[in-house]
């Protein structure tokens, strides 16, 4: 069952039987721009990008995004850049997989962000959402509907962070403006 998170709400990534989550996936999906007119390729294609920033303390250590698809330690993997979006039927067009057991010990927070690389605001993109899924069971842990979220081109979606017992997810849901994750660092820092 999916939790439609509100800003700042936290959920622990512990299973009810005490076992910790071991793998999560951040999924991002949106509908590609409609093609119309004679010169179909001239329609403005929409490219949203999912990124994950790995922090140790408050210091960014590694970033997984469309130009660096696997973190150096191999724990975080981006499945590849999608430049145009999908059919808008609820499937993920971009996904970032996190193997929590393998995240290096000094990394204590992983922040997931979404950017509109081509510059359309989320208000213009149809059926855009991002979600966090428990990769072992396929269960959706959290979901944000981006569409209709206002005149923003980026969102700091959520973070997973270490606690004494395991990993916990906190929803951030902070809308922002920016082309890539670099533009979002100032927006991320207050949430660390």
């Amino acid at each position, binding site marked *: 069952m999916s939790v439609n998170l509100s800003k700042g709400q936290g959920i622990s990534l512990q299973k009810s039987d005490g076992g910790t989550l071991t793998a999560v996936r951040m999924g991002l999906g949106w509908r590609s721009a409609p093609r119309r007119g004679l010169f179909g390729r001239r329609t403005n294609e929409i490219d949203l990008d999912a990124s994950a920033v790995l922090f*140790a303390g408050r210091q960014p250590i590694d970033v997984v995004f469309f130009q660096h698809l696997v973190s*150096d330690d*191999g724990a975080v993997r981006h499945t590849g850049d999608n430049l145009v979006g999908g059919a808008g039927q609820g*499937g993920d067009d971009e996904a970032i997989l996190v193997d929590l057991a393998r*995240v290096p010990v*000094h990394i204590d927070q992983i922040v997931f962000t979404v950017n509109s690389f081509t510059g359309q605001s989320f208000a213009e993109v149809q059926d855009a959402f991002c979600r966090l899924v428990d990769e072992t069971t396929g269960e959706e842990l959290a979901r944000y509907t981006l569409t209709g979220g206002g005149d923003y081109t980026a969102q700091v979606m959520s973070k997973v962070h270490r606690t004494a017992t395991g990993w916990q997810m906190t929803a951030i849901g902070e809308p922002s403006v920016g082309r890539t994750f670099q533009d979002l660092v100032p927006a991320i820092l207050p949430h660390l």
Partner: protein
Amino acid sequence: MTAELVRGQNHALDRTRVEIRITAGGPVVAAVTLGDAQGRLPGTEAVAHPGAPRRTGIEVPRQAAAEHRLAVDLGALPDAVHRVSVLLALPTGIGALTTFGAAAPPSVRVTDLDGTGLAGYTLTGLGAESAVVAVELYRRAGAWKVRAVGQGYADGLAALLRDQGLPQAAELAAEIEEAVGRGHARAVPAPAPAAASRPDGHAAPQPPAPDTTTPPAADRAAAAPPAPSDGHSAHAPAEHGPSVHAPSAHGPGPTAPTAEGATSTAPPAGAPVDYRHPKRRATPAPATPTPPVGAPGDPVSPASPPAPSLPVAGDAAGWSMEERLYNQVWGMFEDLTRSVAAYRSAFDFAESRLEQELDTALSDPRNRLGTAADAARATARDKHAALVTQARAALDRDLAQLAAESEVVEPALPPAFARWDSPVWQAHRSAQERPMALRLGDLHLPEVRDLRIPMLVRLPLERGLWIDCGPDTYAWRGPDPDRAYARRELGSALTDGPPDEAELRRLSLETAVALAARMLAVHPAGEFAVQVIDPGGTALPALAPLLETGVLPAAPVPGAQGVATVLEGLTRRVDLVQMAVRSRAADALPPDVDTADQLLIVHDFPHGFDDRAVTRLRYLADEGPAVGVHLLMVADRAQAREYGPVLDPLWRSLLRITPVPDAHLVDPWVGHTWTYEPPLAPRGSQVVRQVLARVAEARRERRS
């Protein structure tokens, strides 16, 4: 084409009407469960079993047998069904098998209706389990896929069904048992009177003949009937009495392995062959004897937490074992790279944080007096130590896993991938087909000196090799623990003083000969040849193994004459083969052109080379690999300095390897510097010579 799956691997199915064919080492019960998206079973109606063999879209056999065919129509299944698990269980009443480990591993094939294989999976590594989820077919994005599962349960079918969330697991398991017993009793023809059939039941094998005069329930409660294949088992229940155990009745029992495998643990002759690996740790029983906490039907009770799986050789994707091992080795390479990257990054972070915190403590004016500064420093150091310890623990955990994997993978490697000291080289005779890759040496990192990753490169080689014998590059630049280790453990020629030039040259040639021998041996006879350019004649002692076995027909002609002849011959071959390939006229090649792949070993470069010869050599380095002419230079770059930058592209196009362990190769993922170690045979070993002798023998056989 059938995809051979390994545990955990999945494969897309392009049709919905399939058959599942099961072959086992003894009678097994086949059943199918239809789970929802979470794999849970809503009730007993979601299980197709011998007592209720038909469900919508599924039919299973009514009785236990060693071979089964299950018809599955995935398209006919209700939409709620997301996961179709195929189970195998050992019947308790009939058949002498009580664990899967005691017989040949069962195998499952998913086929088309006409028998065309789609996917296959052999359930290796089973031990004390008596029920197992073999494969599952599952919906993924509207299409069906098959996954090799192989999850076994020592506590049998009831534990398995309970794990799938079935509340009435124990009852259903009992019902299945009973149905199997009924089916079994029905299937067996009325036997001769029991008293007559029993004593000679072993002399003449016949179908399992249970005492059907007793009701089925009693039959199961009593001991197992004498199954012909296992009747002479030492494990046969004692109720059968000693009379059936006359050893002469079954002739020479299965002979115990006489080879080196026969140790004190060899089973007594007559015992069933135990297929379990003698040295591998037994699989921890997945289902613990303690009953699961909570109610029996509690869907979250972890009946069998999957233990960290034991590494298995070939545990990677690929069509053949060779390809799987290749992929597995590269997977281990990447895993080691990334684990060490995680460790290094955590270590660096700890260092920089320590420095920062010490600085802060130092610059804080409040700390000038009193012990606060000391306390702050101590805290910072503690934090640093704790993080480093944690990082090291994570690294050690990964390394233990990789070391265990390496231990099972190394002995399984085929000759082209194996070290010279591997037993496969002793057994190697001649290759039947070209290997996909070649082990060029070993790689390791300073953090983990004893874990060696085979450096496998694809064949045919895309670029030439350059064995660097220049002493300047190995000059001592400071204390190097890696070098000390290499000297101590590997007998490296690198000393702390200036390296011994003669020794480096000797090792370089030895490396070249070892590589040439390896390439010759792993190619089918007659498909690979070696040529040598040695204008000074100084390589002769090192080339002795090639010359004496006749693999190299004649010693290289000394002087510029020899250089020119060999290069001209090879250039002509490259030109002609290129032409033939371009015009698709491979059969029009003149008969004197050797179509075998050629390895050209160039020693003493640039001695004996004129400008023309250098140009030809560069031409061969550029154009040769595509048409099967490979270059192996043994050279000191400093000696070719007079050519200036003209030769730089040549050096850059070659893969530099070293005759002594040296850190100069970089991995493609993170960019660690790896220490390369050449593929030399152990000191005093004759293996290279033996292998070359066999190559020569295979060539003679081929010609005759």
